[in-house]
């Protein structure tokens, strides 16, 4: 218990966070990347649990976008396609497309984001989730990046600019 408390406060100091189940990966740029999730090159994450996949944008993305002031989301019952936009976030002066890492049917959207768009900044992997989807092609998940690969991807992207 003491070790976990120490780890948690150290993690807070380093701007890292721990999800209740997944382990955390360290990122040199200090954006949080969680184990157990899959990641797209356009900086969205997917958490696949049973027949439901939850989708949002990563800590790296929210950090680079700035304060989110508005979120545009689709209606439940619609569909998403891998790599295609399903919504947008507005931060400062910019709208930025959010793309779905997988294809499927939208079964739920996070309605809290209409009143509290800042949840995407404060809690990108938990309270800031955007849509829940019933995947139509579960094999699409295999082509996404794991946490280590995504961490390296972010580091290389930041280093090259």
């Amino acid at each position, binding site marked *: 218990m003491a070790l976990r408390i120490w780890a948690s406060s150290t993690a807070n100091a380093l701007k890292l966070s721990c999800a209740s189940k997944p382990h955390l990966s360290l990122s040199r740029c200090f954006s949080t990347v969680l184990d157990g999730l899959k990641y797209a090159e356009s900086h969205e994450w997917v958490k696949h649990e049973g027949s439901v996949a939850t989708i949002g944008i990563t800590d790296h993305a929210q950090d680079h976008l700035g304060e989110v002031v508005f979120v*545009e989301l689709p209606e439940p019952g619609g569909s998403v396609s891998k790599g295609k936009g399903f919504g947008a976030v507005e931060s400062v*002066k910019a709208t*930025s497309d959010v793309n779905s890492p997988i294809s499927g049917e939208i079964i739920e959207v996070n309605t809290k984001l209409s009143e509290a768009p800042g949840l995407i900044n404060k809690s990108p992997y938990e309270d800031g989730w955007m849509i829940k989807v019933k995947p139509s092609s579960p094999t699409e998940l295999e082509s996404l990046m794991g946490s280590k690969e995504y961490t390296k991807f972010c580091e290389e992207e930041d280093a090259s*600019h």
Partner: protein
Amino acid sequence: MNLMRFKGLPILKQLHIEEQLLRTSSENWCIINDGTNDPTIVMGVSGKPAELLEIESVLRDQVPVIRRFTGGGTVIVDPGTIFVTFICNKEAVPDLQPYPRPIMSWSSSLYSKVFQGIGDFHLRENDYVFGNHKFGGNAQSITKTKWIHHTSFLWDFDVRNMAYLKLPKRAPAYRSARGHLDFICRLKDYMSRSTFIDKTVEAARTQFLLRSFELGTIENCSETEFRPSTRFLTNEELEAAAVAGQ
């Protein structure tokens, strides 16, 4: 980079062209529109009319209101406004990360060339200012493969038009609760229209190989049935917004 120049093009038409190019073209574009003929209010994608506009006056005077596809705030544009837009592929500017702040910073470095030695030009939060007076407002939209950064420059403005706009709730800190007329300034006090446009084209030429493009060429080549999201708000929508306070 393709350069398109207009004079007095209606702002809705300009925004439709921009949205179509952002979504369907694989090329880079610079669009300059020297004034727009009819005074028009243009809100950002999430703008709430009741918060941003004096709706009663807007409806009484039948001022058109547009909701555009990019983020950002509300402006009232007219023949004194000069518009400059850059639509770029993500690889167009080397070493530029396609996020709001780097793009904003890149744009200010381009305009620093335009305003070198003139006024005390800089980017203040997300506005172009001389000193602490705003003369240029910016907005962006970022897709998977491209971004657009467009600016409305207040070369001149009609003081009476500012009365249609409320003081926004979300304002930059440097505004310090100043009213419109204490906050903004006119570019005409620093530079002629033609000098500004020529210097902007010259600054763009230092980074891109520019080639002139005619609008008709785009319309003839268009193979996609693209429907822009930018549109006028109807009187009914404005009235409903006034009632609902949104």
